[in-house]
């Protein structure tokens, strides 16, 4: 496989959740959590997905993994559309795609030992006759994985509550790697951790990527974390991608007013730099995604808005090669 081969392609992905219409609530409608996003992910790269709470980052990852069946759109993994696969074929395809979740407390079963948690994916695939690993092979792989992610193999029989937050996240990572996937979807894997531990885990992600040639879709709300880990970055707002570019280009030359405001809002841990910076303070809050918008989704909060932004959806423009912005400017 060449380094530049496309591993995952998402085409006009939409995920709408219905709400209301029950016995008591009169109103019926949809939450437009993800509203038409498209991107490609090449073998071996890391695409960072950033945005504020409720912009649809996690829903995107879940829709790609088919944890939510998307409302419409295509999710092509090696050219095969996952959204159209039957459950049985989907299980086989998912072997290539694993997830690491945000909360290392909620994503591990408290009644299973660390070893069982890491072995579970292998056991499931054994059960589906996709893998045929012997008990000893599984045991060996679990121990290898534990050592690789920085846990002693002697912790195999311990339960999640005996580990700290950082260690639990290591278990979650080992579990995701157990099936030797090509693509790992990381949903805010470091945001629940303290800074000193966060740095350890970020470095672990980088090392593992190099060693196993992994491809990441890495979700975080912290722009500095995304900058550190990503080769390309997509900025999301209200269910759409407003800007996507190579990491260096995006941070050097942000085009969309939202990206510019977001970058200016991130505090930099250096008082001298911090004092000299100009902030673009956005007014208002992120609006609720329960309406169909005719114009630009960012219109209400934009500091560079023009009249026609309200009336029609902005086009996707290429600011420089590989740097796309969805804005009239």
């Amino acid at each position, binding site marked *: 496989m060449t380094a530049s081969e496309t591993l995952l392609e998402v085409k006009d992905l939409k995920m709408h959740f219905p709400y209301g219409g029950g016995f008591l609530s009169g109103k019926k409608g949809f939450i437009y959590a993800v509203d038409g996003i498209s991107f490609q992910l090449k073998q071996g790269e890391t695409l960072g997905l950033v945005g504020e709470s409720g912009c649809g980052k996690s829903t995107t990852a879940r829709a790609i993994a088919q944890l939510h069946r998307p409302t419409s759109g295509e999710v092509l993994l090696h050219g095969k559309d996952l959204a159209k696969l039957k459950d049985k074929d989907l299980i086989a395809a998912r072997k290539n795609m694993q997830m690491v979740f945000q909360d290392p407390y909620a994503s591990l079963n408290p009644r299973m030992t660390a070893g069982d948690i890491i072995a579970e994916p292998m056991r499931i695939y054994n059960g589906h006759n996709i893998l045929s690993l012997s008990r000893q092979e599984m045991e060996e792989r679990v121990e290898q994985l534990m050592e690789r992610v920085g846990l002693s193999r002697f912790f195999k029989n311990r339960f999640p509550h005996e580990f700290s937050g950082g260690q639990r996240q290591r278990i979650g990572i080992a579990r995701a790697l157990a099936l030797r996937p090509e693509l790992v979807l990381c949903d805010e894997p470091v945001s629940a951790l303290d800074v000193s531990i*966060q740095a350890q885990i*970020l470095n672990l992600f980088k090392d593992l990527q190099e060693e196993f040639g992994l491809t990441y879709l890495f979700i975080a709300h912290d722009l500095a974390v995304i*900058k550190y880990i990503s080769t390309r970055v997509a900025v999301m707002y209200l269910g759409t991608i407003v800007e996507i570019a190579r990491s260096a280009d995006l941070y050097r030359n942000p085009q969309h007013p939202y990206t510019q405001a977001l970058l200016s809002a*991130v*505090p930099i*841990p250096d008082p001298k730099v911090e004092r000299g910076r100009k*902030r673009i303070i*956005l007014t208002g*809050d992120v609006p609720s995604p329960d309406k169909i918008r005719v114009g630009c989704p960012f219109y209400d909060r934009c500091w560079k808005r023009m009249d026609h932004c309200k009336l029609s959806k902005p086009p996707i423009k290429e600011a420089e090669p590989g740097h796309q912005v969805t804005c009239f400017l």
Partner: protein
Amino acid sequence: MAMTEDTILQVKDLRTYFNTDEGIVKAVDGVSFDLHKGETLGIVGESGSGKSVTNLSVINMIPSPPGRIAGGEILYHGKDMLKMSKHEIRQIRGNKIAMIFQDPMTSLNPFLRISTQMIETIVLHQKLDKKAAREKAIEMLKLAGIPAPEKRIDQYPHQFSGGMRQRVMIAMGLSCNPEILIADEPTSALDVTIQAQILDLMKGLTERLGTAVILITHSLGVVAGTCDTLCVMYAGRFVERGPTDLIFDSPMHPYTQGLIRSVPRLDREDDERLSSIRGQPPNVIDLPDCCPFYPRCDQAMDICKKKYPKWKNLDNGRTVGCWLYSEDK
């Protein structure tokens, strides 16, 4: 530390312990600091380092049992708050020393209108009748940047967004013109763009009203932009204290050095590898009388395992608790 004219609060060797089944948790173990008029003091540290307990002790809100203040003094204008009667403390708390907490949803009563909650505080502490108090409340909400405060004051907390609720908390906290505002992770639950709004608001208002602020946070970025003085906390003690600029410029304690190096930064090149602090923070139950950081420290010496380092005062207003800077070993 000499008591000067404009010192409002002086905390001396504060110790707060919690009795648990597993032993005594020394959450705060010998913390000292001064707060001057109009000063913004930052306390940074990782989860469980004792930041919040320090400040709950200051306002006498440690749940007891299991907690108790085992020693030290908290001098408010030279008077020890630990020796005051409940009545006297109530005169100060919420009036002269106000608080803002991390989660604005749990610190507002969901059953009461904003007006009821704000007027209650104002009537209790200031000699105003209800009508005047309501006017004062509306004025404060306006200062805090809430649109149409005359209408919104009669709404319930759930009708406000996260950022707006934090604005209400700030308005409420500042409504009695306190001398000290204690803000415990005021922006940690908020998105970056909202965080920028709230920090901006807090800074503007406290500067205008001449309020001193104790800001507790885990984010070095937030501290860099807002605080004059900085205290770094680890395992229940301060490891370093001094002017913010100097600490960021030349951190002295190995923990501070590691902490600053392990934060990913927007203004740094991507290919630089993050350095992390190995290991994890200690459990504060039955800590031996040694430096709690030595198992993670790169510069640990023999003495670090035997005795806790003494505080070393340097002439430029800095203090550090590390054997590296202490002559009498």
